[in-house]
C-alpha cells in the first residue's frame, strides 16, 4: 500500500519531501538532496523496489537546475516510487547508480548525451544514440531544433 511505503521512508529518512500525487494510484513521489539519492535508492532496493524503471532528466532552465528523476518499482507492493533531485545546471554532476543496477548504464549514457549531465563513477559515458554531435546537447531547452533543422537540412550546400 502507498501509506506503508510512505511510513517506511519517513521512518528511516528525515529530510525527505513526500508527495502522493492526485488522480494517480500507486504512485509516490519523493524529493531529496542529490547526495542522498544513492542512499535512499539502496534502501528502497533492499526493501523490495528492485526494478529500476527509468532515469530521466528535466531541464528547468528558468531555475537554472536539472531535475533528475529515478523511477523504481516493486513487484511485491506494485507501487512506483519516483525519486527526484535537483542539480546545478552549470555544473551538472551526480553520483552514478551503477553499483546498484548495471542497467543504469543505459539511462545514464543517454542523459549524458542528451543533457550533458556527468555521472561520477560511470566509466562508459560514450556516445550512444547520436554520432559526431557537436555543440549543446540537443535535449536542453536552449537548443532550438527547428532552427538547427532549417539551417542544416533545408538548403543545399553552395
Amino acid at each position, binding site marked *: 500500500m502507498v501509506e506503508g511505503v510512505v511510513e517506511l521512508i519517513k521512518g528511516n529518512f528525515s529530510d525527505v519531501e513526500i508527495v502522493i500525487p492526485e488522480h494517480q494510484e500507486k504512485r509516490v513521489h519523493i524529493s531529496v538532496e542529490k547526495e542522498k539519492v544513492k542512499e535512499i535508492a539502496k534502501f528502497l532496493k533492499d526493501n523490495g523496489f528492485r526494478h529500476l524503471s527509468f532515469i530521466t532528466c528535466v531541464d528547468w532552465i528558468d531555475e537554472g537546475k536539472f531535475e533528475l528523476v529515478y523511477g523504481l518499482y516493486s513487484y511485491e507492493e506494485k507501487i512506483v516510487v519516483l525519486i527526484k533531485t535537483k542539480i546545478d545546471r552549470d555544473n551538472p554532476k551526480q553520483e552514478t547508480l551503477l553499483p546498484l543496477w548495471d542497467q543504469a548504464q543505459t539511462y545514464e549514457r543517454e542523459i549524458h548525451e542528451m543533457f550533458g549531465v556527468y555521472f561520477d563513477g560511470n566509466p562508459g559515458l560514450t556516445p550512444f544514440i547520436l*554520432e559526431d554531435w*557537436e555543440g549543446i546537447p540537443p535535449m536542453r531547452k536552449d537548443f532550438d531544433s527547428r532552427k538547427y*533543422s532549417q539551417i542544416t537540412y533545408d538548403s*543545399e*550546400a*553552395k
Partner: protein
Amino acid sequence: MLESFRGGKVARWFKGRSMWLLHFCTGCGAIELPPSMTSRYDLERFGIIPMASPRQADVLLITGYLSVKTLKRVITTYEQMLDPKYVIGFGSCTINGGMYWDSYATINKLDYYLPVDVYISGCMPAPDAIFAAFLELREKIEKGEANGYKLYKIHYERYKANQDKVFKNRGIIEGED
C-alpha cells in the same frame, strides 16, 4: 556490341522484370514491406525479392525518414550497389521532411543526397501504393528513363557537397578503417 546490348531494349526489359531490392529497413516504412512481400500481397509475383547484400540488389528503398547516422550508411550502401541501380523514396518523410520536418536528427529532402527515381506519397503508403511505385519504376526502366545512377555520377560534386554538409566526420563509420 556488348555495351549496346547492355543498355538496349531487351536488357532493360529483363531489368524491369527482375528488380531485387535491398533489405535495409531505414525507417518506419519498413513495416509495410513485410505485408507486401508476404502472402497477402506477394511482391514476388513481379520478380521482386529482398536481397541480403547491396552487391546483389538493384533497388534501394528509402523507407521513410533518414537520420544522419543512417544516411551515412545508406550512402555507403548505395555506392556499393552495382549499376544500374534505382532509388525509391517512401512516404512524406523523403519528399519534404514529413512528420520530422523540424527534427535535429533527420534529413528533410532526400534528393539532396541521393538521386531518387520514384517517390510515393503517404504516411504509411499502403501496399497498393507500393505496388504502383514498383510498376511505375518498371515502366521507367523499360523506357530507359530511370537514370538516377547516371545523374549521381554527373552531379557527384553537388551530392558530395550536400552530404559533407550534414556529416561532421565523413567516412569514419565506426570500426571501418
